[in-house]
């Protein structure tokens, strides 16, 4: 079994709203292993995105411990967390969130500049664009390409620094089914290449790509299911397996 690279213990997250405390995560324990494709599912407001952002250091937990490679998040200041994000983590968002005034190539390359010399970054960016199938779009602005192409660019941007973990928050949520599948194929391809992925989704088509599924309800992890590595085969069987698991959880 591969080693644990990210873990959370007793993780709680609350928001104050209108004088009331809204407990979004309640004593969550979680582990992410190297090379796995972990998918977190749950209904709206269950806390899955909050879990993702806490685990990635984008948001701070109210209590509990998050440990990444012997580094405890609560002991890291904002700058150290930023450095962690730039080198070890990559992000793909539901709304793509490409910087509107940078070209597709620049969007992909910018995080690279934080870590490596420009020539190396440019070579890597071109390689990734080739891999995700958008090499012809390098000079276009985000507003000049389709949603699917934007999301592929976002995946390439997330991978520019060869991160240890790729976090994906509903990466197909804003895409049509064809574009969504293309993005999922890319993620699966990278996972097969050893990329660790933690993804939050509602989408069963996305969920079947997982090697492990976790279900979160009312801020608590209530179930998980191991699956084999997705090879692009047996899709129907994997889908049935996931549906059955979700049905058992009251999905």
């Amino acid at each position, binding site marked *: 079994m591969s080693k644990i690279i990210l873990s959370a213990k007793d993780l709680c997250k609350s928001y104050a709203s209108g004088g009331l405390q809204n407990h979004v995560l309640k004593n969550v324990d979680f582990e992410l292993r190297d090379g796995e494709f972990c998918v977190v599912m749950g209904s709206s407001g269950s806390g899955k*995105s909050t879990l993702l*952002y806490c685990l990635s250091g984008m948001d701070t937990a109210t209590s509990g411990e998050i440990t990444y490679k012997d580094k405890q998040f609560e002991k890291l200041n904002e700058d150290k967390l930023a450095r962690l994000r730039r080198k070890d983590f990559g992000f793909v968002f539901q709304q793509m*969130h490409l910087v509107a*005034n940078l070209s597709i190539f*620049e969007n992909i390359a910018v995080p690279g*500049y934080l870590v490596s010399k420009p020539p190396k970054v440019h070579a890597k960016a071109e390689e990734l664009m080739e891999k995700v199938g958008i090499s012809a779009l390098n000079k276009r602005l985000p507003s000049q390409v389709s949603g699917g192409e934007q999301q592929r660019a976002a995946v390439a941007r997330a991978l520019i620094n060869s991160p240890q973990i790729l976090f994906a*928050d509903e990466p197909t949520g804003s895409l049509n089914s064809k574009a969504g599948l293309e993005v999922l194929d890319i993620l699966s391809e990278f996972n097969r290449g050893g990329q660790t992925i933690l993804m939050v989704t509602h989408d069963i088509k996305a969920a079947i790509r997982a090697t492990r599924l976790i279900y979160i309800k009312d801020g608590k992890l209530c179930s998980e299911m191991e699956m084999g590595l997705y090879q692009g085969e047996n899709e129907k069987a994997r889908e049935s397996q996931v549906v059955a698991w979700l049905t058992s959880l009251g999905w």
Partner: protein
Amino acid sequence: MAILKLALSLLKKHKAYAMTIFCLSLIVSLMLTAVLTVINRTANLQNDSFSSSKSPDFMVFLLSEDYDFSLSSKLSARDEVKSVRESVAVFVIRQEILFAGAAAKNEVGSFGQEGLYILPYQIENGAFKIKGRPDQLENIGKGEIILPLLYENQYSLIEGDIINITGIEFKILGFFEDPYFGSPMVGTRRVFVNSEDFKLLNTTENRSVGCLFIDLNSQMGDHDYGENLRSLTSNAFYGEEDVFVVTKAEIRQFAMLVPDLVAAILFAFTLLSLVITLYVLRYAVLSGVEGNYVTLGVFKAIGFIGRQIRIAIMLKYALICAIGAVLGVFLSIPAIPLFGGILMDAAGLIWSGSVWLSGALLVIVAIFALIGLITFMNTNKIKKISPVRAISFGHAPVYFAKRLNLSLKRLSCLPLNLKMALKQMLTRRKQYTVLLIIATLLAFMVILMGSISGLFDNDDTALYVFGNPQFDFSLSVRATDDDGDFYQKFDELTAEFAEKYDAVVYDIAESYTVLENTRVALVCFEPFDGIGMIEPLKGRFPQYENELALSPVMELQFEKTIGDTVIITKPDGEEVPFIVVGIVQSIRDIGVNSTIGISGAKRLNPDFSASNRGFILPANLTVKERETIVDEVIEKYESDDFSVMSKDVFFGQLLDSIRAVLSPATAVAYALAVVLVALITFLLSMIAIYRENTDIGIFKSIGFTSGQLRIQFALRFLLISLIGGLFGIILNLVAGNYLLSLIFGLFGVPKVSLSPGAFELMFPVVLVSIIALLAAFLVSGRIKQVSGRVLVAE
């Protein structure tokens, strides 16, 4: 009511915008009220002072040793003359006046250029306002003296200091406002003593001078007044020798030259600030509409019509600005005496008066109306907002300009933060155009102000601007009779100085003549070359006896130009034609002057001999060496017969007083530029952070630290203000001289050449850029509060 509530809700949402617009409106209102009040009041102050001191329409000083008052009856007989009053003054040369300045220090010095006219103080002949005293002075006690205001600061004198005039001691009773001779722009000075003391002075060996105080029949402001005065002074005195005539109309122009100049510059600067405020407001309004596209769509969806929303936005800004404007008017109350006092010092007058209420009201209404109009015009887009589109799609996609959009790949050689700042700046040019234009204008104005100030910081450039030849010291014949011995000695001394000090020497003389039936100051020089004279605007300096150069003012007035003939009327009525060979500018008599050579002067008067010579020491001497030589010459040769005057004595008072006004005006310009840049950068930074909230979240999510993003953010403003500042420099180099010439043209010098140094050019740019950098960095603190959570779509 609903509109007002809507206005208030919009106000709450954009507190930072509102605060900035409020501050800008306050500053503009403060400046406008202060400048308009001072401009409005200064002319009245001068008139009031003329009136209370019973200043005549013109004065005649009879300088001949054996003068008589026969001219008085001749003048009285003329139709246009209402009254002539005779008086006697005592003229005392400067070496005979000593003072113990600022008593405690017991510094000894002497003042005046040539000397002073001393007159007896008689309240019935006019009362003077004394600084620090509410009432006009009724009487001067025995052993007391009153001095013009100018001397207080010039010589660090205080009430109670002792003045020694030809051995008789006087205690300073106070400093009076002299509307006639109180301005540093006028070379003559008068002081007043008790009648008995005056009699005592008059019996000593001092020179007695006859004075005539003449009033005309026409009332001030009448159309005929100027014509009467011109014709009278042109014709009545030209035949008289040793007569010095000075008119109220001339004094009015001379005395107010510097205050008018500075007020005009500050007024221009204030108008520029108003334009900047309106421009910034326009940007804020447009940004507000874009940023609230969805909210405005919601307002429409719940029943507000476009016009109601526009009125609400207009009300929001107009009310803020009106409040700012009212507060600005109140704040101008303490600023006005300060500003007015500085300007009036340059006219030798005492400032009095408060806010010009009509002007203040006008300012408030104008600001309210302009802001309302600009806001209403720029909210036109609201009409086109469809509630469904707004709510469904948010605001329209933003397309970024491709031109000048350098790729990050091409900027690889730059450090990351600079690269990102440059990229953001270039791709969001529209957003930063406001700052670019404002930085350009402010840098231009501040450089211009600094350059004007710089012109007068240097004696030589100031002389040049005034159309004077350069000189280190001058030698003039003081004796009034025509004894040939004096002139022989004068020539001997000239030759001695020229040889001993290797000095360039030129003759210079000034008088009034009747040129084309107009009283015109006639300046005679020779030689013209090598004496640092400003080059003729057209043609050349006169070389032969029948040649003459007109000033640009005269060129326009007479409609004569190079090659034309003009007529000088001699005292005996003989008309002498001269050919115009050049157009030469000089500030003398506000441009009402012309220039001839010494040979031309001899053509008018064969006995003419220049009684004044200028000496220019070799350029390779140090300042210290020059001072040593000048001091040596003065000590050795100054006498009852000859006057030796240094440039400092001749020009120092005037330059000091100009500097005393220009320095604070320049400081105000700098302060205004700093405040405007800080406020505008603050506003633009707030808008930028508001607009780029998501982008900041993205950059944080991919590993940029808050510190990096803040540096990049502030760098954008630094770069844009630096570029704006550089444009300001270019604008200054292209248009600075033109604008300056327009301003100085009002005062008879239509061509002024500025050559600002690197420091004068760069300092304002660096200042404006640093302020923009600091303000942006300060506001960028808000970046710390932006987290990746802004990217969560739940």
